[in-house]
């Protein structure tokens, strides 16, 4: 059972388990929205970190030192994130921080991380986290812009010129909306409608009716929340047969289950984590993805989601950088910037001093749903 208590117990046990002296262990903090409105993102992230930390320690830790993970639940609140960030940096004196989960929290914590000269690897999506680039802040979530462009390219290919955009009232939804509105004209696409719905909505028939009234040729639905499945159900039930495109926030098979038959044929740019079985053996990511998927599903008895993958990437990147840079914070920071060709679950990372995200268009692949499963879309 995906009990939230278990995650924290696990993480706490990890954190509190008998260490050797503090010297021998590497303390890494994590600020995650395990409960609260962003728990769909934060809870899988916490589970992933707990799992990975355990695995790493079983193999001797990071750079020869035991990994001590200090996980704090921010509840999705920037205020709490600020308080806990200060606590992690000044009191716990963590070497680095993974997280926060949401863009709002990351933006609040960003100045604190810089001031404390502590490496911060965020799991949130907003462009402004790494643009403008600041020395200590990185992110492992792919760029919204790339996702939007991939979708628009497909739309242009099949001749869609008039769409309706529905986005959820979260940071993720807002960021996607901005990118879509900005990029649509250059693909010859008209945004007939751009509406925001509540992330906790349980019925969106009225919103979808508005789309029907606008006679759109396709629907673009941008959200990481379960409510996106409602859009699918409502649209299909209403007899709307137009293609529906989703964001990479759809990357959780639970949402497909929630939408049932209505999810059939939905197109979205997704992480290859979701279709690892159909990847050719030669694909660089295959090994990493299979390992993560197997471990996660065995431990937690639920399907992997791309959100947890961001956390996996963050900790693995940190570990790699520590192997290169040792115990010195500045050297590790530079090491992250120097990582090119790091194979993660979200894609192949190519960091640089000017690019603290490292992911490009190839982080995504256009996927679709067939008979309740994710499959690559193909040409």
């Amino acid at each position: 059972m995906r009990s939230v208590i278990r995650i924290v117990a696990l993480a706490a046990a990890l954190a509190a388990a008998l260490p050797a002296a503090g010297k021998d262990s590497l303390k890494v903090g994590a600020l995650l929205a395990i409960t609260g409105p962003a728990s769909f993102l934060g809870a899988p992230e916490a589970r992933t970190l707990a799992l990975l930390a355990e695995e790493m320690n079983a193999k001797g830790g990071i750079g020869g030192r035991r990994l001590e993970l200090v996980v704090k639940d921010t509840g999705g609140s920037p205020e709490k994130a600020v308080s806990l960030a200060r606590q992690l940096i000044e009191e716990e004196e963590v070497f680095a921080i993974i997280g926060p989960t949401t863009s709002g929290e990351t933006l609040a914590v960003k100045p604190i991380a810089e001031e404390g000269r502590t490496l911060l690897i965020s799991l949130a999506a907003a462009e402004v986290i790494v643009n403008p680039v600041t020395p200590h802040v990185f992110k492992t979530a792919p760029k919204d812009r790339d996702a939007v462009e991939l979708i628009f390219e497909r739309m242009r290919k099949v001749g869609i010129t008039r769409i309706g955009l529905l986005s959820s009232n979260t940071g993720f939804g807002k960021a996607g909306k901005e990118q879509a509105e900005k990029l649509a004209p250059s693909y010859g696409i008209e945004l007939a409608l751009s509406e925001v719905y509540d992330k906790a909505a349980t019925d969106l028939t009225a919103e979808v009716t508005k789309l029907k009234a606008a006679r759109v040729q396709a629907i673009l639905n941008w959200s990481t929340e379960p409510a996106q499945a409602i859009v699918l159900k409502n649209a299909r039930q209403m007899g709307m047969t137009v293609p529906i495109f989703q964001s990479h926030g759809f990357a959780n098979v639970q949402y497909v289950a929630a939408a049932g038959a209505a999810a059939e044929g939905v197109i979205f740019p997704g992480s290859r984590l979701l279709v690892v079985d159909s990847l050719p053996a030669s694909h660089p990511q295959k090994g990493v993805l299979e390992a993560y998927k197997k471990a996660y599903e065995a431990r937690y008895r639920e399907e992997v989601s791309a959100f947890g993958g961001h956390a996996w990437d963050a900790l693995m990147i940190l570990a790699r950088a520590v192997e290169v840079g040792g115990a010195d914070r500045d050297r590790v920071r530079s090491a992250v910037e120097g990582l090119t060709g790091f194979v993660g679950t979200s894609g192949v990372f190519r960091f640089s001093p000017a690019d603290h995200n490292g992911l490009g268009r190839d982080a995504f692949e256009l996927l679709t749903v067939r008979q309740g499963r994710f499959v690559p879309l193909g040409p």
Partner: protein
Amino acid sequence: MTLELFLQYLLAGLTYGSIYAVVAIGFNIVYSASGVINFAQGEFVMLGGMIAGSMARLLPLPLAVAVAVAATAAVGALVELVFVRWLVRPTVLRLVVITIGVAILLREAALSIWGEGVRSLPYFTGDELSAFSLWGVRVSPQVLWVLGTTVATVALLRLFFGHTMLGWEMRACANNRDSAALCGIPTRRLLTLSFALAAAIGALAGCVVSPIAYTSYSVGGSLAVKGFTVAILGGLGNSSGALAAGLVLGVLESLSVSLWPTAYKDVVALTVLLGILSFRPSGLFGSREASRLGEAG
């Protein structure tokens, strides 16, 4: 707006409105019997859907729903026994505070048990795509289940309160507790029963709407607020009024989407609530008496 579109909005509004109405009826039952507004009513709806969701993997659907309803009724009774009855000098302030606390505890318990994931029951008939045409509008069969359940609930309750001994006893209790006690009516037990009944009705609503929406640990809060809005709008204690008010609110919300940005949809219900409380607390159909809340507290 074409007729077809208008009907589409209307139907959407009626569907959700009827859910709000059922939640409101739950409020009414408890209020009538005890003068208590149970802020945890929304959580009963959530529990119904969650328990049924878990049971549906082991039992056939009708049985799963039955188990969920019964289990939630038990929870409702427990809530009354542990939290309301034990209260020393139950002033209105204390009752409000404690039922809010109970709502939070129920929600957090659901989070611990079921996690943050969402679940839906399978459609009672058909699936996500099946629909039939009604005046040119496509309607899911589940919508008929929702509307039908609401109407059936209201009808059965009228029968219960109007024509059965137990129902009369509960009404007597509501009217004047002390006199009822003097007549030998077991008022305390009836109070517990009223909570259980309200919980059962909420759970049923949660089950029947779960296929077209979804259930997760946090859906209770906003349902409680909207349900309460409808209860006040229809006049506290007036179940037919609640039905009418629920449909009105649902349709209002739905039509508001066609007029201004959907981001403000929830503000509609809240503004209605604030407005009605400020200017006509007895609701559209209620009596002056019903508006005297918290007097005896």
